[in-house]
């Protein structure tokens, strides 16, 4: 971590201001083919191999929309409670750029596929929030330019190359309302979007492959003010971490400008990851006139209510709703709940185990504790391992009913991981049932006390914390089977008799 704060703004000054942030992000859809042609939508192919007359914009080629991409946007919108207007259309956004083959992008201007909706999110500490969506619309991605210069930038390049494999990949643009008030909230919003898109299967949301790219509109104002300040649009944030740093840096920059008596100007600023600052790229006066107009090559998009309901019927619980269920109903801590939610397969597996056991919290502790450790050590995900949710549920029940102790439970889990099968059968086979018979445990307690006269003397001399050591010794003598609370109770009885 280089620097999280520029250090130029004192905390009391910082505290007088409030940031207002709105996020726009572009997410590549995970479809089989591109948006307007049949070329494969895959990442990492050799340059200019997934191309055809349509996505190269050869003379005479025409776009035909990918119905799966349209459905994906409708699903995404519905997941956030957006309205799906009956009529939508594609428009052309006109501007020249070498990696955009037609020199216009097919996008949606005033009649997007989805309108409104709310993204609910949670912060690391469990605080919850929500941010309204303006719209989600569908468009096409551009190709990728690479420049033959020392630093790979256009400036000073002697020539440039373009790879059109990405040109025409379906791209979902999500526009959020300026409801976010900190970099943390902005990142939590993005994470919630990303989780939902993954859950819906509409995108892989791989930032390193550029399948999620976001811009942030940032302004600051004095706390209590009702008018928005002048905003700057921050571009080129390539990870959640860089989004957090960029927004934080921009907030500080704007406060510094205002504090020094200056004025924030409306402009586009690029985030410089290495330098940790934003740079001015383009002011509003230089803004493009995109000359949007309805694309005459495409017919209007109709979403009849019945078709929308068919899609809605396929929706499942959103990651946010799952998180809330885990925390509010199951009592799982926020961090653990997040861990579960972020691993879709694990979370599904956990839900089955939690249902079968009726002990969600205990099941969560196993899943995120010993079971995840075993999974990490072996490299096999929990959901792909030999432990079935039913077997874990049994184990949870055996533990909760104190039929076996915690160290026995650990052993059973290891055997289950290696062999599969039923927890009960293993407990019986290995003789791991917890010993709760007072007489049997009392024999062991007597043995341990006899063998440790010095420790007994220490206890009686006031060092009562040696009780743990003595309990451990009883457990060890029982090969882990003694009921530890019974052992402790009996130890105390003996030790406290003078």
């Amino acid at each position: 971590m280089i620097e999280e704060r520029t250090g130029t703004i004192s905390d009391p000054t910082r505290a007088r201001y409030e940031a207002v942030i709105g996020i726009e992000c572009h997410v590549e859809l995970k479809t089989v083919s591109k948006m307007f042609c049949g070329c494969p939508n895959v990442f990492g192919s050799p340059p200019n191999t997934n191309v055809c007359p349509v996505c190269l914009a050869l003379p005479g080629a025409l776009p035909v929309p990918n119905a799966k991409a349209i459905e994906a946007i409708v699903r995404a919108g519905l997941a956030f409670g957006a309205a799906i207007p009956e009529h939508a259309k594609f428009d052309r956004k006109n501007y020249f750029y070498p990696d955009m083959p037609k020199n216009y992008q097919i996008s949606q201007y005033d009649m997007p596929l989805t309108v409104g909706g709310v993204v609910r999110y949670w912060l690391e500490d469990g605080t919850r929030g929500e941010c309204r969506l303006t719209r989600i619309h569908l468009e096409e991605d551009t190709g990728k330019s690479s420049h033959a210069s020392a630093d790979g930038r256009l400036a000073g390049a002697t020539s440039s190359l373009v790879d059109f494999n990405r040109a025409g990949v379906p791209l979902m643009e999500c526009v959020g309302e300026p409801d976010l008030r900190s970099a943390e909230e902005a990142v939590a919003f993005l994470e919630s979007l990303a989780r939902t898109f993954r859950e819906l299967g509409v995108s892989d949301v791989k930032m390193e492959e550029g399948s999620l790219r976001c811009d942030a509109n940032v302004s600051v104002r004095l706390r209590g003010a009702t008018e928005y300040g002048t905003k700057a649009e921050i571009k080129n944030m390539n990870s959640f971490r860089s989004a957090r740093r960029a927004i934080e840096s921009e907030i500080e920059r704007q406060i510094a400008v205002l504090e020094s008596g200056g004025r924030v100007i409306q402009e586009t600023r690029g985030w410089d990851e290495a330098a940790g600052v934003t740079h001015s790229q383009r002011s509003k006066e230089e803004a493009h006139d995109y000359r949007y107009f309805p694309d005459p090559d495409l017919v209007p998009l109709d979403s009849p209510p019945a078709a929308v309901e068919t899609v809605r019927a396929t929706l499942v619980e959103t990651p946010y709703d799952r998180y809330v269920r885990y925390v509010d109903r199951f009592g799982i801590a926020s961090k653990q709940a997040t861990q579960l939610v972020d691993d879709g397969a694990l979370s599904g597996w956990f839900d089955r185990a939690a249902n079968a056991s009726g002990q969600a919290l205990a099941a969560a502790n196993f899943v995120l504790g010993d079971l995840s450790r075993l999974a990490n050590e072996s490299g096999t995900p929990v959901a792909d391992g030999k432990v079935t949710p039913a077997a874990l549920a049994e184990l949870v029940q055996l533990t909760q009913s104190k039929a076996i102790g915690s160290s026995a439970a650990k052993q059973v889990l290891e055997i289950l991981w290696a062999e599969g099968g039923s927890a009960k059968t293993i407990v019986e086979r290995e003789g791991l049932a917890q010993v709760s018979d007072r007489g049997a445990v009392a024999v062991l307690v007597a043995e341990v006390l006899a063998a440790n006269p010095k420790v007994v003397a220490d206890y009686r001399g006031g060092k009562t914390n040696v009780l743990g050591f003595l309990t451990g010794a009883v457990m060890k003598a029982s090969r882990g089977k003694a009921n530890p609370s019974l052992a402790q109770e009996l130890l105390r009885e003996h030790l406290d008799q003078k």
Partner: protein
Amino acid sequence: MDPLHDSAVAIAAAVHRGETTAADIAETVIPHVARIDAQVDAYLQLTPELMRAHARRVDARVAAGERPPLAGVPVAIKDNMCLDGTRTTAGSKILGNFVAPYTATAVQRLLDAGALPIGKTNLDEFAMGSSGENSAFKMTRNPYDLERVPGGSSAGSAAAVGAFAATLSLGSDTGGSIREPAAFCNVVGFKPTYGRVSRYGLIAFASSLDQIGPFARSVEDAALAYDVIAGKDPLDATSVDRPAEPTAVALPRDLRGVRVGIVKEFDTSGLASSIDACYRSAYDELAALGAELVEVSLPTAKYGLATYYLIAPAECSSNLARFDGVRYGLRVDGADVGEMYERTRAAGFGPEVKRRILIGTYALSSGYYDAYYVKAQKARTRIAEDFARAFERCDVIASPAASSPAFGFNAKSDPVAMYLMDYYTIPVSLAGLPSLSVPCGAVVPEGGSSPMPMGLQLASPLFTERALLGYAHAYEQATRHAEKLHPVTAVTR
């Protein structure tokens, strides 16, 4: 059977019957076309080897028992339609070196039907023009007077059929680019309903107006070609998914019971008296065939030209943005990519194309969009509504195809004078209607000595191609105007 002068129907039938072969037809046609084209310059490119290859394929199919509907029929393709492996220029320097790597759907359907491609025909650059003079490469001559234009933009496709240098050809019509040159060249030119024929592979001028259609020397041949190229194409989202009923069968012989609308606002009395007389006589001929002539009104048609010259340039300004020197076609290097764009487009586009890109860019610009583009779209809707109302009172509308016969080269140096040539065809295009021009007589033009062909435009409601072709066939068979004129290229019928 004479493959140079007979109809497509007759040629295909002869090939089907085994009276001749496609290969023989190709060998007869190739030298003949070269001879005629030396005078007319209808073609930008002849494709004899491709023609021979297709002829062999057709003969093999016929030998195998197939009966392709256009077996052995020599066809010409307007050079704004892609044909795999051939140079496809759209009449522009910017595509002077562009070799298409795929074939347009309509062209492919012709070839699949057994047609033999003679070559690619000249056109006004990017189909923008009404005389053919905007071609970056050559001036096509009118086969009925070599000192006059063939009309445009489908200049070469009309001239080739008119000169007997092709049996059929494909053109494209945005505001009249099939109908006007058909009228000038004494042939039938047919623009189907917008969406009937796939635009895939047609280099776009104005996407919401462009439509491919055939030129032929008879309505029946045009119907035959239309039946082959019409129909839904999964590669064109605007192609309509409704069955195109065959039109080349059971064409009627008279017009009894047909109500022909004569448009009040298209009164020809203001035109030269010979032209006015020509159209009046054409209407009388319709009535003589049993048609009932009814006056209809298109009060908004007078806004057609203004509407068209906003919508078409707006779409063209965006459609032609792809010609940037990056991926194909002409590139003129510059210090940076911006300068490369500027130099490439400055050198690659002709003046009319530049004019329309400028008009269109302006019409779509922030602050002008509502006043120009949006208003033009509203006017377009009103024009279409006017036609719909008129069709409550008539089955087909008859009007001039053009306001004059073919004019001389460089006669229309004022762009607006040129635009006015399409006064009667543009409103029909804006409404998306099926429409054709059929020969309706001849007029000695001002300053001319010999009579030049005239065309009658017929337009009917959306998707009524079959009825429209029927009316035109009845008129053509009863009047036989085309046969009264002979091209000066020394070929007689």
